[in-house]
C-alpha cells in the first residue's frame, strides 16, 4: 500500500522531480552563461573563464522543487547537427537568441524550423522558452520584434514564452525559468494524470 501512495504522490508531482532540459541556440548567444547563472555559488565559473563549448556539457540546478539537468549544447555550426541526439528525452527546451545579432537572425529561424519539424519534437507538447539575450546591447531588438522575426506566433501546438534577458547580470532569467518550471510541471502532471486514471481504472 505504501508504494501505491508513493506512486500517487509521484504522479501528482508533489515529490521533487528530476527533469531534463536542452539548451540550444547559435554560437556566442550566451547559452553557457545563462546556465552558469542558475548554478550553485560553489559550482559557478567566473564569467571571464567561460569558453566556447565543444560538443556539450551537463549542468545541474534547482528551481522551485524541480531538479533541472541541463544539456548545454555547443552552438557552433559544426556541431548543430548533433542537437537532435538529445531531443528525444528532454522535458523542455531553452532556446537562446542573441538579440543584437540581426544579421544571423535568419540562421536562427532556419535552426528553429528544423527543430520544430524534427519527429522527436513535432509530435510532443513540449514547452519552449526563448531568451532574447543581450538586451543590454545598444543595437538589441526587443523581444516582440524577435518573436515576429522568428515567426513564433505560428507555433500553435506547443506552449512557448519569450523573455528579454541579460545573462551577464541575470536580468530576465529567473522570470523565464519560472515560466518553464510551471509548464514542465503541468506537462508532467498531465501525462501522469492520464496514466493515473488508467491506473485506478484497473
Amino acid at each position, binding site marked *: 500500500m505504501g508504494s501505491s501512495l508513493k506512486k500517487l504522490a509521484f504522479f501528482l508531482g508533489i515529490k521533487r522531480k528530476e527533469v531534463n532540459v536542452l539548451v540550444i541556440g547559435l554560437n556566442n548567444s550566451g547559452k553557457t552563461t545563462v546556465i552558469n547563472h542558475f548554478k550553485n555559488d560553489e559550482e559557478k565559473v567566473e564569467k571571464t573563464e567561460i569558453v566556447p563549448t565543444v*560538443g556539450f556539457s*551537463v549542468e545541474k540546478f534547482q528551481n522551485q522543487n524541480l531538479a533541472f539537468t541541463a544539456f548545454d549544447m555547443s552552438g557552433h555550426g559544426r*556541431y548543430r547537427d548533433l542537437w537532435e541526439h538529445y531531443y528525444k528525452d528532454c522535458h523542455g527546451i531553452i532556446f537562446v537568441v542573441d538579440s543584437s545579432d540581426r544579421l544571423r537572425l535568419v540562421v536562427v529561424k532556419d535552426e528553429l524550423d528544423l527543430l520544430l519539424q524534427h519527429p522527436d519534437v513535432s509530435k510532443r507538447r513540449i514547452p519552449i522558452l526563448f531568451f532574447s539575450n543581450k538586451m543590454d546591447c545598444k543595437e538589441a531588438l526587443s523581444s516582440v520584434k524577435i518573436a515576429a522575426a522568428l515567426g513564433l506566433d505560428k507555433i500553435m501546438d506547443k506552449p512557448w514564452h519569450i523573455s528579454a534577458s541579460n545573462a551577464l547580470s541575470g536580468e530576465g532569467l529567473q522570470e523565464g525559468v519560472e515560466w518553464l518550471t510551471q509548464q514542465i510541471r503541468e506537462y508532467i502532471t498531465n501525462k501522469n494524470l492520464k496514466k493515473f486514471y488508467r491506473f485506478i481504472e484497473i
Partner: protein
Amino acid sequence: MSSFKREKKEEEDGGGNPFQNIEKTTVLQEARTFNETPVNPRKCTHILTKILYLLNQGEQFGSTEATEAFFAMTKLFQSKDVILRRMVYLGIKELSSIADDVIIVTSSLTKDMTGKEDLYRAAAIRALCSITDSTMLQAIERYMKQAIVDRNSAVSSAALVSSLHMTKIAGDVVKRWVNEAQEAVNSDNIMVQYHALGVLYHIRKSDRLAVTKLVAKLTRMSLKSPYAVCMLIRITAKLLEEEGDSGNSNNHLFEFIDSCLRHKSEMVTYEAAHAIVNLKRTSSRELAPAISILQLFCSSPKPTLRFAAVRTLNQVAISHPAAVTACNIDLENLISDSNRSIATLAITTLLKTGGESSVERLMKQISMFVSEISDEFKVVVVQAIRALALKFPRKHSVLMNFLSAMLREEGGFDYKASIADTIITIIEDNPDAKETGLAHLCEFIEDCEHTSLAVRILHLLGKEGPRTKQPSRYIRFIYNRVLLEDPRFRAGAVSAMAQFGATCPDLLENIQVLLTRCQMDPDDEVRDRATYYSNILSRQDKSLYNNYIIEPMKISISALERSLQEYIQGDTEQAFDIKSIPVVSPLAAEEIQTIAQKTDGMLSSTGPASKPVQASREENYIKELSNVPELQQLGPLFKSSDVVELTESETEFVVRCIKHSYTKHLVLQFNCTNTLSDLLLENVRVQVDPSEGYNIVKEIPCPKLPYNETGTSYIILEFPSDLSQSVGTFGAVLKFIAKDCDPTTGIPDTDEGYGDEYILEDLEVTPSDQIQRVSKVNWSAAWDEATEANNYSMMNIVFSLSSVSTLEEAIKNVVQYLGLQAAEHSDKVPEGKTVHTLLLAGVFRGGADILAQAKLVLADTVTMELTVKATEESVAELIVFAIE
C-alpha cells in the same frame, strides 16, 4: 599458482563466465536504457561492461550502431556515480575510433579533467586525448599544459603518456609543451619522472644536439625513478653508438653508464650492464665490471634476473667470447635450472664459447630436454649449433645427427626452416658434410608438411646432387615426390630432376623417361615444366643446358611481370624484348638479409624493427625516375650505383650522387639537402665537367630547395662511343640562386636572390657502373663453352697489386672495382693458401656477357693474372684497360 589456474579453469568450464552468452544486438538494445531519466547507475554500469566485453572479444561494431551507443552513453554524464563515470571514460576510449562525431564529449571531458574530483581527472585526460584530432588539439592545449605539471601524480602521468600518443597526430603542438615536460622531470613521483623523460626524449629525438644536452643535464642530477634511469641509460647508449669513436668527448657518457652499475636498483644495474656489453666500443677492461654484474645475477634466486643475465650473455657470446667464458662455471650450474628457458640459453651460450671437447657432452645435455622447450628456444638451440658447425667443422657428424633427430620431431615451420637452413649452411661450408647432409634432407622431405621448405630442399638437391659421387641415389627421393605430393612439390621435383639430366650425361636417358611420365600429370604447371625440360634435354646441346636449365634466370621477376603487363595493355606490333628487363644483381638479396639481421636500437619504445620485403635497388629507382619525363626515352634502366657522397657530412649543403646507367646514356641523380635555415635555394643544379668523349644531353635542375628538404636534380649524359673513354673523373660544382629568408617561416626577405656556387668532390665513373653482377652456378661450364664458341673475344693481362697485402683484400678490391659477381664461392680463400683463383661473371650495359678469371699469387705483394672473355671485344678491352 598452478592450483589457482586450475580452479579458474574449472570455473570457466562450469559456465562461470557471466558474459558467455551475450549477444551484440541484445546488448545494443539494452543500451537504450542510458536514455532514461533518472539514470540507474548499477544497471548502466553492467550494460557498459557488456559492451566493453564484446569490443574486447573482437566483436565488430558498425559505425551507425557504434554512434548510437556512443550518444546514448553521453547522456550518462548527468549521473554523479563515480564508477559509472569511469566506465563511460573507458567506453569513450573504445568507441572513439568507430563512432562518428565523438568530439561531442570534448567539453564534458575538459570539465572533468579540470574539476575537483581527482578520481575523474586522469581517466578524463586519457579519454579526451583519444577523441581529439590535430585540429581540436589547439583547443585543449591549455588544459594539457596545466595537467602535465599538476600536483596529482596520476593526472600528470596521464597527461604525459597522452602527450606521447598525441605526437603521432600532432607532433608540432606537443613540441610546445617541452617546458612543462621539463618541469615534470623534476617530480618526486617515479612514474611521472619516467613518463616525462619519455616525452622529452620523444620531442627532441630528431635533434642530436638537443639530446646530448638533455643527457648531459640529467646525468648530473640524480634521477629518483629507476625507470627513468633505465631509459636514460638507453638514450645514452644510443648516443654513444651513433657518435662512434669520436675521441674522449664521450667519456663522461660512458662514465655515467658505468656508475649505474653501482646503483641500488637491480633493474638499473642490469640495464647498465646490458648497455655496456652491447656497445661496440667497449674495451675488455670496461667490460669486466659489467660481466661480473651479470655473473652475480646468474646465481640470483629470482628467475627473471637469471633469465635476463643469461640471455644477455648469450647474445654477446660471439662478440666477447673471452669475457663470457669467465662466467662458464655459473652457466654450467644453470644447465639444470628448473626453468627450461634459462637452461637452454645457458647451454647454447656454453656451446658458443666452449671448446671442441665439450661439444658432445653439451649436446647430450640438450637432447635430454629439447622436447620440453618451446619452438622459440629450439630455434635458439639450432642457431647455436649452426655457429658451432662453422667453428668446428670436424664435429659435423655429431651435430648433423642431432639436427636430423630434431628434424624428425614435431615442430612449427620456423623451427623446421631454421634446421633446414642450418643443414644447408653446413653443406655449403663444409664439403665433407655434404653427402650426409643431403641424405638427411632427403629423408626429411619424405615426410614434410611444409611445402615451401620441401621445395627449397628439392631445389638444393637439384643444385648439389649432380655433383656428388653417386647422383643416381637422389633421383629416387626426388621422383618419390612426383608420385605423392601436391602440385607444388611435383613441379619442384620436376625442375630438380632436369638439373640432374643436364649435368650428368649418363643419367640423361633415365631422366628423360621420368620426365615423359610427368607429362601426363593432371596439373598444368607440372606438365609445362616437364615438357619444357624434356624438350631442351632432347636437343643434346650443352649451351642450351647451361642457359636454360642450370643457370637461374638473371632478370628481375617483378620487373618482368610489370613489363609484360604493360606489353599486353599496349597495342605494339613489336615482339617483346627480354633485354629491356633490368638484370637483378644477386647482391640485392644478400643486402636484405644483412639489413634484417641488424639489431635495432636499444630504445624499445620504437618497437621491433620492421622487415619489409624490399624490391631491388633498381626497381626502387625506376619508380623514382619514372616521374621525370625526360628519362623515359632512354630505354630501360640497366644499373644504379651505390650512393656517393660528394660533400662531407655536416656541411652547409649535402649532395649525394647516384649514377644510373642506361644502354647508351648515363644519368647522374643529385640529391641535394639544404641545411641552412636562413636560406632558400632556387634553380639548384650540379654542373659537371665530364671527361673527354661524354656529351651532356640535358640538365634538369631542382626549382626550389627550402631548409631541411632534399631536392633532386638530374644530368643526362651520352656515353662515349669509344668504350675506353667511358671511365673517368668528373669535376662537379653545385650552382644555385640563394635568397635570404626568415628562419622561422621560410619566406624569402626579397624577391631577388644572388647566384652562388659550392665546389663538390670529384665524381668517378668506373666499369662497375656499367656492369651488372650475374650469379653463375656452374661457372666452369660457361667458361668452357666460351672457349669453344667463336663469338667471345679474350684478353689477358698480368700485373701486381702493390697496395694490398692479403688475398682477401685483393679479391674485395677487384670485385668492387669491376662490379662482377664471384661464382662458386671463389671469393672465399681457404686459410693459409697463397694461390687462389677467382671466378667472376657479369653483364655489360647493352647485354654483352662477361666472364673473368683472376689467378692470384701472394708473395710480398699480390700478383694477378686476369683473363677476360666477353662477347664484345671493346668490353674485354675496357676491363683490362681499367684495371691497369
